[in-house]
């Protein structure tokens, strides 16, 4: 097909579109919705009398804040990257809080003398944590990808990477309110494995999830 013919077809198919709001505004909207739902679940189901004294410990407070910041910055990065003219460097935004989170968690492991065995045995509650992060990430990712796919990102990989890191970090943040004990090495490894799995699955299915395939555009012009 000649370029001139393509222009004629695209012109003939033109329909008015609703212009997307600024990425930062859309990120804020998603974060506010998630904060409202997570807040309600935490208030209703979390063992707050056991959790609140722990949050007064600086190391645990830093870990908690770093997890929340990783989630917030990764979600902002995903929305920014979903629009064509934004810098790819947005992808690095969640890196500092993510490293801080890892450092704070690692410090917790060191404090326990790198013990592999927690109060509840070798694996302890770690499999539950793994299941919590992966399962809680699913509805969060569905909502996030539903909003992100409206932009039809031209480069889906960084969007999916930042987005899935954001939902996994959100799930890990909520988990801290149901996790009233220090992390062991096994805990940390399983938390990171769960995040890795969520990122891996999200990036593997990025094209259908984000409606990012150019083939969809071809169908319209066939």
């Amino acid at each position: 097909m000649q370029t001139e013919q393509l222009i004629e077809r695209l012109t003939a198919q033109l329909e008015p579109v609703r212009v997307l709001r600024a990425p930062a505004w859309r990120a804020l909207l998603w974060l506010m919705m998630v904060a409202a739902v997570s807040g309600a679940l935490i208030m209703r189901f979390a063992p707050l009398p056991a959790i609140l004294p722990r949050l007064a410990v600086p190391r645990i407070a830093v870990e908690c804040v770093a997890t929340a910041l990783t989630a917030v910055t990764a979600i902002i990065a995903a929305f920014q990257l979903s629009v064509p003219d934004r810098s790819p460097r947005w992808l690095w935004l969640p890196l500092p809080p993510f490293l801080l989170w890892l450092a704070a968690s690692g410090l917790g492991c060191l404090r326990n003398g790198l013990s592999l065995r927690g109060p509840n045995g070798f694996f302890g509650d770690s499999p539950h944590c793994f299941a919590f992060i992966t399962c809680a990430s699913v509805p969060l990712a569905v909502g996030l990808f539903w909003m992100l796919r409206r932009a039809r990102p031209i480069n889906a990989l960084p969007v999916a990477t930042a987005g899935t890191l954001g939902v996994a970090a959100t799930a890990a943040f909520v988990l801290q309110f149901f996790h009233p004990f220090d992390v062991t090495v096994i805990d940390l490894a399983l938390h990171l494995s769960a995040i890795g799995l969520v990122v891996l699955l999200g990036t593997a299915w990025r094209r259908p999830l984000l409606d990012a395939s150019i083939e969809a555009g071809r169908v319209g012009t066939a």
Partner: protein
Amino acid sequence: MVAAQAGDRAAYSQLLREVTPFVRALLRRHCSHPQDIEEMVQETLLTLHRVRQTYDSKRPFSPWLGAIAARRGIDGLRRRLRVARYEVSAELAGYETFADPAANIDIEAVRAAGDIEELLQRLPPRQRAALEAVKLKEMSLAEASRVSGQSVGALKVNTHRALKALRALFQDVSK
């Protein structure tokens, strides 16, 4: 673009026609093969159509369009590399089953033709058009003038300059 987002077809048609040469110029940085460039131009226009809701009128248009073209340019290059890695051109594939030593000579000839094709792509467009019409397609000057849109005088000058430039390019390559 704002009018196109509102559904104004005349404005959209004008926009697409005006941006096409700009997109083509951007994509020449990624590729020199005219057919591949045209394919990338079309993919850029398709993508522009699909993501037109993401254009924010408070921001400049060129970086938005440039980012789309650059992305499609990179995709096009990757596709080309993939094809080059796994596929053999029809001319070369024909020799794969022959043990005849003469076939190797023919393969060298085909490769040389491929090299010439690449060097031709490096010539300025008017010189390349003149050389292709007058020397490669062996058209008469009048016929070549009609096809290329250049005057007979310009054709002679451009053919001469193209041969000179090609000779210099060959010397560079063989060093």
